[in-house]
Structures are given as C-alpha cells and as structure tokens.
C-alpha cells in the first residue's frame, strides 16, 4: 500500500537573509543565518533539527551547517541535483522523511554568493570525463556557455510556433517587476520597468534580452518542514503540503533537451503537473496563485500550458489579458520572482508560496488564496508543489 504524502507534512517556518549583490560573508554563514531565521519563524530551536536537505550545487556541507546552528543528531540528509530543478525536490525529500518517520524536523536550504562568488554559466572544460562534463561538451566548444543560450534555443522555437513576440515576454517581466515594486527584499523594489526600457535593453541570446533573465544574487533561504500535526501547535499558520513530486522524462538533458521530436512543450513539467494534481486531488481550477520557476520569462508562458491553465500554444493569451497580475486569473510570483526579487535558485519562490497561503505577501491578491502552485527549474529534471491552507 503506497504511502500518500498528502497533508502529512507542512511548512512551519521560512527564513531568509537579506538579498544583495555582495553579502560580504561566507555561504556557510548565509546558510546558518537563514536556517536560524526559519526556526525563529516557526518558534522552535535549531537544536530540534534532525534532517537537512539542499542542492548538489550548494557549497556548504550539511554537517558544517549542523555544527554552525547547533542542530540535533541528524537522521536524514540528502542532496538534489540539477540546479534550480532541485527546489521543490528538497521539499519532496523532507516530506517523504516525515511521512515515513525518518525525521521530525527537516530544514531545506539554499545559500549562495551568486553574484560576488561563483556565478552561473562560466563554462566547463578540462580532462575529467564525467557523464555531466561530457554532456556539456556538446555545447561549450561551440560557445554555448550560459544558461540563457541553452534556454534561448527552446524559447525561439516555441515563440516561432505560437506567434509569441518579444513584447509578450516583456509583459511577463513587467508583471513581476510590478510586484517587486512593493517588496522591500526585492532587487526591483521601487524600480519600475516600462515596455520601452524592456524593448531597448541589450540582447543576450536572441530572442532573450537582459530583462528576460533572472537576477544574480547573494543570499540564503530556508524552509522548515515538520508533521502537519506538530505544525498546528507552532507559531505560524501551517502551509499544508497537499502534493509534492519530482519529474524527469524521456529524452531529458540538463538544459539541452533538444533531441525530442518536438521542442515546444515541457514534458517533465507536464509529468510534474499530473503527479502533483493527482496526489493533491486537485486540478488547475483549484489553484488560486502560483510561483512558477522563472529563470527566464519564456519559461512562465510555457508552464501555463504544462500545468493546464490553458491549452497548448495559448499561454500567451493568458499573459496578454493580465492573467498573471494581482487581479488576474493566476497571480504569479507575487514577490517579483527570480527575475525581480532575487535568484536563490527557486527556494525564495517556495517561501513566497508560504506567504501567499498565510495571507502575508506584499503582493497578496484580494481573493481567498486556498492553494498555491510552486514549480522547480525549467528545462531540467524538475518537480511541483501544491501548498494549501489547513
């Protein structure tokens, strides 16, 4: 008899450092600070943490984190690969551990000096022939060194097929910037973005310009997960984990799934949608707001189709009618997202999902937000999470 993960666990605390372009301290310190903040938010001591989960790309070892924050003995620790594809996957690990009694208090974190330290897309080379490095070597000798170049290939094909224009991508960027205007944590706080500025910005990888890209950020974000039962006794209203999953599909590559018969959809995201909706017993019509992974604007439009908010090829219509805005059908990335709040590899999008369920977002829609959908990275092995009110 399979164990259902529905409503077994809840997010009881979120913790963040400030977001900046130069934190002036180590990634270990950022990790310790955001984890302590998540414990404070939940009203527990870090000495109760017995599980830790992060990304393979995170530089900080869980045992160093445990020592720094004074964690309990650890009975579960795990890492998820594939960059931002790990985001919701960390929550999946924590939820499975709690549902099966492997741990009681799990913290998922991502802490990075993403601007002042190691930046994304510096290329790889060398004599090591791991499967990962061989994969990248089909691209790096040709000059495809940055994530935008990998995504642009899919974005261009998708836009060509469905008549999506640069202005349409601009609408996504501006919608998210409008949310960030009111979010003091955000890069885009108080900095409006106009369509003229968007259109005049530097091209990076046609059809993607500067404003189609996410931020590069120094900062940390931690999510504290415990059993639903215990979460109800803690300081915050629990954000119930209605469904959570990971997904990777045939023909999957890391960022370069170019060899499938068609390139204008996201099969792994469609699998994530199927799994998470089935687990939660919900469908797209039940989702009131979303934090869809947004390393690039084009990814938002494609995900609207993957998650069934519209038919294939019609995502752009939802964008054009203001569907992502605060009074739209699906308020999305109400903190500004990775594009206009900060790039903490999707962990900050999960934190925003929690705020929306609590009713505490700086971009809180007027309507009742019962369920929020959060996704992991696009173009990589990924996953999806549905948070709900208790």
């Amino acid at each position, binding site marked *: 008899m399979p164990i259902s993960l529905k409503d077994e666990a809840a997010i009881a605390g979120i913790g963040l450092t400030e977001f900046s372009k130069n934190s002036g301290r180590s990634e270990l310190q950022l990790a310790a600070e955001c984890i302590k903040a998540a414990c404070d938010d939940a009203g527990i001591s870090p000495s109760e943490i017995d599980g830790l989960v992060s990304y393979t790309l995170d530089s900080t070892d869980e045992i160093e984190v445990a020592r720094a924050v004074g964690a309990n003995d650890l009975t579960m620790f795990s890492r998820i690969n594939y960059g931002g594809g790990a985001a919701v996957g960390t929550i999946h690990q924590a939820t499975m551990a709690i549902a099966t009694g492997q741990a009681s208090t799990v913290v998922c974190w991502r802490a990075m000096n993403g601007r002042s330290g190691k930046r994304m897309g510096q290329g790889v080379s060398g004599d090591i*022939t791991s499967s990962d490095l061989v994969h990248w070597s089909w691209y790096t000798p040709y*000059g495809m060194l940055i994530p935008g170049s990998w995504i642009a*290939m899919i974005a261009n094909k998708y836009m060509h097929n469905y008549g999506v224009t640069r202005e349409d991508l601009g609408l996504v960027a501006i919608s998210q910037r409008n949310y960030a205007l009111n979010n003091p944590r955000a890069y885009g706080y108080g900095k409006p973005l106009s369509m003229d500025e968007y259109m005049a910005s530097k091209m*990076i990888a046609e059809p993607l310009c500067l404003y189609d890209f996410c931020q590069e950020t120094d900062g940390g974000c931690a999510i504290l997960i415990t059993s639903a039962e215990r979460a109800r006794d803690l300081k915050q209203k629990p954000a119930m984990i209605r469904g959570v999953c990971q997904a990777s599909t045939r023909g999957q590559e890391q960022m370069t799934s170019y060899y499938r018969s068609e390139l204008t959809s996201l099969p792994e995201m469609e699998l994530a949608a199927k799994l998470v909706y089935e687990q939660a017993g919900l469908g797209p019509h039940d989702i009131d707001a979303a934090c869809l992974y947004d390393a690039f604007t084009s990814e938002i439009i494609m995900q609207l189709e993957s998650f069934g908010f519209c038919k294939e090829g019609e995502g752009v219509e939802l964008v054009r009618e203001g569907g992502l805005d605060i009074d739209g059908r699906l308020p999305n990335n109400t903190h500004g997202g990775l594009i206009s709040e900060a790039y903490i590899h999707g962990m900050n999008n999960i934190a925003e999902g929690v705020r929306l369920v609590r009713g505490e977002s700086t971009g809180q829609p007027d309507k009742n937000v019962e369920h929020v959908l959060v996704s992991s990275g696009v173009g990589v092995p990924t996953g999806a999470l549905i948070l709900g009110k208790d």
Partner: protein
Amino acid sequence: MTDPRRIKPPMGPDNGWWWDMAAAGKLGIQRCAGCQTLRHPPTPMCGDCHSTQWDTVEASGAGTVCSYTVLTHPQFPGYQYPLIIILVDLAEGTRLTSQLVDCEPENVEFGLPVEMIIQEDPDGFKLPVFKPAGAA
C-alpha cells in the same frame, strides 16, 4: 596570459571518437549494432535494445535548421560574435547542436537548408560547423 581559444571538450570512451572523426574531416553518428538505431548525443548503451555494441556512420552533412539563437553577450575569448548557434535536423534523422557560419544573423531562419563544413582553429582544433546550403 590566457590563450584566446575555444573551450575544448573532455574526451572519454563515450564521446572522444566523435571528435576524432571531426579531426579527420567527418561528421559522425553513433549506430547501435543491435538494432541499427542512430543516436546523438552518443551513449554507451542503446536505450531501446540495451546493446553496448555500436559503430559509427559518416553523415552526409546535409540538414535543415530546426531552431537557432544568436549570441551577442557576454563575449568569451575564443569565439566570434555575433555567434549563431543552430539545431540541425540531419538528413539521416538525428539532430545535433552546432554553429552556422558564412551567414548574417538576419538571414538565419527556421527550416534553412545547411551543409556541414569542418572549421579549423588557428591552434589546429577542428569542429564540424554548418553553412547555408549552396553558399560559396
């Protein structure tokens, strides 16, 4: 001083042969010895019949542009910008990622017929790239 050369691929048993063929002026495709399926990028086992035996065929070099991007920023040493990267549907049925040369960025389009040529860098490194079919 950094030598402004393109990033070289690491070469192992799963991919080194492809670059060896390129150095010999050929565009290679891996072929499963069990079920004759052509596959790219190469893998050491056939996902369909699970054979670990394979050989290679030489592609004709003819194909069409499936998708493309034009890279303008940031500009890395060893590459010439604007840099046109293309996905090519080869006549043999596999697809690969490569570069389009001898073409202005405004002239690249979906479905453009292209043909492979071997480009040799000043340091002698060779890689298969494509030019518009019939271009001089």
